[in-house]
């Protein structure tokens, strides 16, 4: 028997580093794998059980491998509006937006979260950004190259990042920090727990209500212990994080998003606000405008698969005899109870309901372009 765990093979030739909670995970029986240059917990009791727990209660994820960046200095908004296609100037204090870094050709270099801090609320920076772990050093290089000298970028690598996700996440966190109950989706703030400053945003990447918590590395284990002592909370590995985000229809960088694809085809046009589309002035704007006018050549779509055989990344997608696309992430969806996938298909085959076939080990299986998310989002929005 041979396995090829698609998380485990990444960067296996580099020595893996330990994150602040490494010992904490091992003490709780996590199976550790190499991912984005670090030893990371892929699962504790099993992906399926952890997935279901998060959908029903609250799961604690360690996402400390992700890059936390602070930006400050004169003209920081103007400078970031060259790097990001999103409306930064209109971003109010304590609000967060999903955005991405585009290259000159409009290809996606990374997707990210960007927030405006209140005055000096968190490390003295004006703008806080969370970028993907596997791309963080490339992102930093790209940004340094394109930022003016007046803008300072700080890699906040002394901070750990935890995500608490699930319908009981709000209730759980409020038992430790009651004021967090007032946050709504994509809102953030600075809070204090036992004297420890925590930057908390109501966001995450599972489709559930939840929080991302930036905590000083030295206090991370204490906070993780306090959260997991609550009856609603269990530690959850990266395996379930992946199946949760797939069900939520959220793209994964390096798989569903790459430099070869663009924002409009990726169905991420919502991240480019009206003013930015009209005014431009960001790297990659020409491709965005062209695709808005002419339509993209291909689109990111959700796929419902007949039967029980999962289609994985790389599986070719056919319409009759013609190859029209490729699966970019896929697996068994525990909440849906069936295999699902995300893939890119050429525009004429991308409409909801389009009947396609996916080839898995020489066999064609029937699939249909499906509305995403596969499982409804349950973000806590304004009443």
């Amino acid at each position: 028997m041979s396995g090829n765990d698609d998380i485990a093979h990444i960067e296996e030739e580099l020595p893996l580093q330990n994150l602040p909670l490494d010992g904490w995970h091992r003490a709780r029986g996590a199976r550790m794998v190499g991912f984005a240059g670090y030893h990371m917990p892929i699962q504790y009791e099993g992906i399926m059980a952890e997935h279901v727990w998060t959908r029903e209660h609250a799961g604690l994820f360690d996402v400390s491998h992700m890059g936390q960046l602070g930006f400050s200095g004169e003209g920081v908004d103007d400078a970031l509006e060259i790097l990001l296609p999103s409306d930064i100037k209109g971003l109010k204090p304590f609000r967060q937006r999903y955005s991405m870094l585009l290259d000159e050709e409009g290809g996606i270099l990374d997707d990210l979260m960007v927030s405006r801090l209140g005055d000096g609320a968190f490390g003295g920076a004006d703008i806080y950004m969370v970028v993907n772990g596997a791309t963080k050093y490339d992102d930093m290089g790209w940004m340094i190259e394109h930022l003016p000298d007046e803008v300072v970028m700080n890699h906040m690598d002394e901070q750990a990042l935890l995500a608490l996700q699930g319908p009981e996440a709000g209730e759980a966190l409020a038992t430790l920090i009651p004021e967090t109950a007032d946050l709504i989706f994509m809102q953030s703030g600075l809070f204090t727990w036992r004297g420890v400053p925590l930057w908390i945003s109501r966001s995450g990447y599972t489709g559930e209500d939840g929080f991302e918590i930036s905590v000083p590395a030295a206090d991370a284990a204490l906070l993780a212990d306090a959260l997991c002592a609550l009856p609603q909370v269990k530690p959850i590995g990266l395996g379930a994080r992946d199946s949760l985000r797939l069900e939520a229809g959220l793209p994964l960088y390096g798989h569903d998003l790459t430099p070869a694809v663009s924002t409009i085809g990726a169905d991420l046009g919502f991240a480019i606000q009206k003013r930015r589309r009209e005014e431009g002035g960001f790297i990659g704007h020409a491709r965005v405008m062209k695709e808005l006018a002419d339509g993209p050549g291909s689109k990111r779509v959700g796929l419902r698969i007949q039967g029980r055989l999962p289609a994985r990344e790389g599986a070719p997608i056919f319409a009759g005899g013609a190859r029209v696309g490729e699966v970019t992430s896929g697996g068994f969806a525990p909440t849906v109870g069936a295999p699902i996938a995300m893939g890119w298909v050429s525009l004429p085959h991308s409409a909801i309901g389009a009947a396609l076939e996916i080839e898995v080990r020489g066999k064609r299986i029937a699939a249909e372009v499906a509305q995403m998310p596969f499982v409804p989002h349950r973000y806590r929005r304004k009443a």
Partner: protein
Amino acid sequence: MSRYFTDEHEWIDVEGEIATVGITDYAQEQLGDIVFVELPAEGTAFEKGDDAAVVESVKAASDVYAPISGEVVETNSALEDEPALVNSDAEEDGWFFKLRVIDASELEGLMNEAAYKKFVASL
């Protein structure tokens, strides 16, 4: 009946000329939640080492090799409805397929239970 083990984590029960093949409890534990098992068609002839079946866990697909040469005479249809049988009972009800053994000498290099346990402990 004798049970043999491979270093690819298959077990083989041999009774007369029929060998029943499955994956070990250690293997299912490593794979995690199993959601699909693709079994060979009856009548398929395998050489030792051929790809014989595929186990899909939530995360990934893993190949299962034919541990010895032979012809498939039966597959475990229970796995179609309940692939998780491999998780709950890998070394009994979660068997994969039965082969008609062509060359019994191929069994000679395989491990017995004690040797396999020692092998797993060394991993």
